[in-house]
C-alpha cells in the first residue's frame, strides 16, 4: 500500500448527505407554502432513483453497496423532484427520474463520468415531451385557499382526483404569468399588480427561493461548494436581467424578481454546483456560473419555455471541457497551468 497512510474523514456519502440536509429548508418551505404534495413527489422520485441505480449497477457489474450508499442517486432524485410541479402525475416523476439515472448518469459511465447534470437532463426531457403537465403548478395555498392533505396530494399524483380538484389548485406560476402577460402586450408594471406576485418575486415563491438560499449558504459555510459558481450565477442573472430592465423596464422583469424565482436559487446553489458536470478551475467556475446565469435570462426572455435554468446549465455543461482547458491556473513557480508541447 502506498503513501499517504492516513486520510481525512470525508467521503462522497458525507458530501451528498450534506447536500440533502441543505435541501431541507427548501422542502419545509415548499410544504408550508404549497402543501405536502412535494413529500409524495420526493418519496416517489427517491424510490425510483434507488431502484434504477441498483439495477444499473448490477447490470454494469459494479458492487451495489458502496455506490448505492454514496447517496448521489438520491441527490439527483430530490433535485429533479424539486424542479417538478409538486402535484405532477406519478408517471411524469418516474419517467424523469429514470431518464436521469439510467441515461444521463449510467449510460454516460456512472458516478463521476456524466457530462450533463442528470437531474437537469431528466427535467429537460420532461419539459420537451410533456409541456402541459410540466407547467401545471399548484398555486400558493394563500392564494388558492384550498389546503390539500397528504392523502389528497397522493390521490392527485396517482391520478385518482377529478379534474375539477386539480383545476382548483393549479394556477400559472409568476414566470408564466409574466410571460403570458408580455405576450398580451401588457407592461411589466401592469402584470406585477396581479396577486401571484409578492414583494420581490412571486408570492410565496420568494420565500421558497429564500429557503434554498439559506440551504446553499450552509453548503458554502461547510465548504462543500465554493462561492464561485453560485455567486457568478446570481451575478449573471442579476446583470443580464438588470441590463434588459434598465433598457426597457416595461418589457423586461426586474432583476430582483428574476433572482427570487426559486429555480434560480436552486440552480445557483444546488444544480450548477454539481462538481461532476461543472468546471473545475477557479476561473472556470466563475465563467460556468456566470454563463449559466446569463443564459437563464436569455432563455426566459426569448426562449420557448418560461424557465431557462435547466437548459442554461446543460448548455454550459457542454462547454466545460473547453472552459477547463483554457482556464488552467498557473502553478507554483509561475508556469502556466497547461503547457503546450511539454518542456521535458
Amino acid at each position, binding site marked *: 500500500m*502506498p503513501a499517504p497512510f492516513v486520510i*481525512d474523514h470525508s467521503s462522497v456519502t458525507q458530501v451528498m448527505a450534506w447536500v440533502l440536509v441543505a435541501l431541507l429548508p427548501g422542502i419545509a418551505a415548499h410544504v408550508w407554502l404549497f402543501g405536502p404534495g412535494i413529500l409524495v413527489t420526493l418519496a416517489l422520485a427517491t424510490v425510483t432513483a434507488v431502484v434504477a441505480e441498483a439495477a444499473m449497477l448490477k447490470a454494469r457489474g459494479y458492487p451495489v453497496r458502496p455506490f448505492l450508499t454514496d447517496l448521489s442517486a438520491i441527490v439527483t432524485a430530490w433535485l429533479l423532484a424539486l424542479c417538478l410541479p409538486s402535484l405532477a402525475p406519478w408517471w411524469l416523476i418516474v419517467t424523469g427520474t429514470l431518464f436521469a439515472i439510467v441515461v444521463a448518469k449510467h449510460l454516460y459511465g456512472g458516478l463521476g463520468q456524466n457530462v450533463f447534470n442528470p437531474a437537469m437532463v431528466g427535467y429537460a426531457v420532461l419539459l420537451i415531451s410533456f409541456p402541459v403537465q410540466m407547467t401545471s403548478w399548484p398555486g400558493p395555498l394563500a392564494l388558492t385557499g384550498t389546503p390539500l392533505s397528504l392523502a389528497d396530494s397522493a390521490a392527485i399524483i396517482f391520478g385518482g382526483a377529478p379534474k375539477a380538484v386539480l383545476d382548483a389548485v393549479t394556477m400559472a406560476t409568476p414566470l408564466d404569468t409574466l410571460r403570458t402577460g408580455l405576450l398580451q402586450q401588457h407592461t411589466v408594471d401592469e402584470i406585477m399588480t396581479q396577486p401571484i406576485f409578492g414583494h420581490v418575486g412571486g408570492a410565496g415563491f420568494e420565500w421558497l427561493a429564500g429557503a434554498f438560499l439559506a440551504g446553499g449558504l450552509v453548503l458554502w459555510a461547510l465548504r462543500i461548494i465554493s462561492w464561485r459558481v453560485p455567486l457568478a450565477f446570481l451575478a449573471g442573472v442579476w446583470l443580464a436581467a438588470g441590463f434588459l430592465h434598465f433598457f426597457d423596464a416595461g418589457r423586461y422583469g426586474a432583476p430582483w424578481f428574476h433572482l427570487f424565482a426559486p429555480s434560480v436559487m436552486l440552480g445557483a446553489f444546488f444544480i450548477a454546483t454539481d462538481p461532476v458536470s*461543472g468546471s*473545475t478551475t477557479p476561473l472556470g467556475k466563475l465563467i460556468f456560473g456566470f454563463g449559466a446565469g446569463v443564459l437563464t435570462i436569455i432563455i426566459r426572455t426569448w426562449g420557448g419555455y418560461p424557465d431557462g435554468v435547466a437548459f442554461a446549465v446543460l448548455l454550459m455543461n457542454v462547454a466545460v471541457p473547453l472552459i477547463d482547458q483554457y482556464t488552467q*491556473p498557473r502553478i507554483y*513557480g*509561475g508556469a502556466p*497551468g497547461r503547457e503546450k508541447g511539454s518542456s521535458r
Partner: protein
Amino acid sequence: MTRVLHRFKGGVHLPDHKAESNGRPIHAAPVPRQLVIPLRQHIGNPARPVVEVGQQVLKGQIIAEADGYISAAVHASSSGTVTAIGPALVPHVSGLPDDCITIETDGRDAWIDHAPIDYQALAPADLRMRLRDMGLAGLGGAVFPSAVKLDPGAHACPTLIVNGGECEPWITCDDLLMRTRADEILQGVRVMRHLLGSTEILVGIEDNKPEAIAAMQAAAAGFDFAVEVIAVPTIYPAGGAKQMIETLTGRQVPSGKLSTDIGIQVFNVGTAYALARAVFHGEPLISRLVTVTGHVLRPQNFEVLIGTPMQRLIDLAGDRDGATGVLMGGPMMGMPMPSSEVPVVKATNCILVKSDALFPPLPAMLPCIRCTRCADVCPAELQPQELFRFAKAGDFGRAQEYHLFDCIECGCCSYVCPSHIPLVDYYRYAKSEIWAREREKRAADLARARHEFRLFRLEREKKEKAEKLAAKAQAKRAELAAEAAAPGATGEADAKKALIAAALARAQAKKAEVAPKNIDQLPPDKQREIEEIEARRAKIRELARQPLETDETKP
C-alpha cells in the same frame, strides 16, 4: 524580530502525533552485532567499496569512496570485520536487494584516528571534497550530497534557510535535535555560511515546537553572526523546502529551477548538525537521530549507527503484538519497508510501526467526482484531478503538459479526497512510466542506430570480400596465363593440372554462390519437416505479437 510571513497555497492540517515520542530523552542505541551498510544511501552514484571481505575496519573508516561529483563516501559505523560485500535487503519499497557492506562488529567500537578540519584554512573546493569524503548528505529525507549543495557555483547565495519545519506527523527527531543540540546545529551553519557566502540566515520551525524554537533562539543569541529563528504556522507541508522558502521570503522557486537560482539554499537542521560533527570533531556521518514511534511501547528518539537493523530499534522501544508493517518516514510520504530487518540509512528519520488501530485500512476507492478538494490543498498548485484522469487513461503526454513533474508527492490530495483515491500512487506510476518510455525510446534509438550501422558494415564487408575475391581470381588467372605462356618451363601434365585446378575453383565459386539456397535440393521428407517447423515458429510469433498489439490499441 518581526518578519512578515507568507502563506503558501494549499496544505492540510493533520493530527500531529508528536507528543508520543518527543517527551523522552534521546537514547544511544547499542552497537548491533551486525551492521549492513548500503552503498547507495544518497542521490547520485553509489559509493565504490575500498575494503575486502575479511578486512578489519575501525569506526569512522571509509569503506566505500565517493564515485564522482554527485556522490558521497560511506563509512564503517563501528569497528569489526567485513563479512560480505554484495546485494542485501535495503530500505526501499521495491524490496529489491542492493549492494551493501556487511560488518560483524567486535564490540570495541574503536575509532579510527580523526581530527577536526581547519575549515578556514582550506580552499572551498578542497573543503567540499573533504565533506564529500565525510559522507555528508541531506538528512531531511532527500539525501542529496551536501558538498554539491554547498557549492554556490556561479550564483551568489545570500539567503541560507535552515529547515526545522518537520511537518510530517509522528516524527520528532529534528525537534529533539534542536532542543538538545542547538549550539552544534548553528556551528554547522557557520561552516555553511562560510562556503555559501550567505548574509541572511533564517531558521524556520513549525510553531508546534515551542521548546525547539526557544532553544534555537537562545543558542542564536550567542553567535557572532545574525540568525533569525522564526516560528512558522503548523500546516503540512510547511517543512517542504519550497514551502519553507515561500513562507519565510514570499518567493517561489520558478518551475523547473533550483532555489539557488533565486539565491536561496535550504538545509535541514540534521544536516547542519552532521556538518558540525564532521568539521569540528572530524567525525564522518555514521550515526543519526531516528524517531521510533507508532505501535511500540515507548515511542522515542535514538542516536543510531547507520546500518543498524530497524528491528533492533523496535525491540528497544518495546515491540508490541498486532503490528501491521513498518514505514520509513511519516504517514504522508513514508515508504513501507519490505522487512523490519532492513538497516537504518542516512535517510531514515523515522521508523513508524503501523497497527490497524493507528492506521486503519483505507476504504474502497470510488470514482473521482471532480470536487476539486485536491486542487484546493495542492501546495504545488496543480489540478490533481486532471493529472489523475490522464494518468489513469495512460495519457502521459497530457499529464506532463499539466505539470506532473512539479508534483512533490506530498499526499495532501489523497488525504482530502472524498473518493479515497490513492492519487499519489497514480502520479508515481505515471512518472515511472514516462521515465521507462524515455529510457526505452533512447534504447530503441540506440538500437536503430546500431542496426543501421550493422547493415552498413555488412554491406561494406560484402563489398570488400567481393573485391578481394575478384582481385584473387585475377591474380590466379594472371598466374595461369603466365604459366601457360612458359611451356618450356612446365610440362604438359602441369598444364593439365592447372586446368583441372581452375575448373575446380570455378565449381567451388559456383557452389559458394548458391550456398544460401542449400535447402533447395532437399529430399521431400526433409522439406516437409522444415515447413512444419516454420509454421510452428510463425504461430509462436503471432501469439507473441498479440498481447503487444492489444496493449497498443488500448486507450
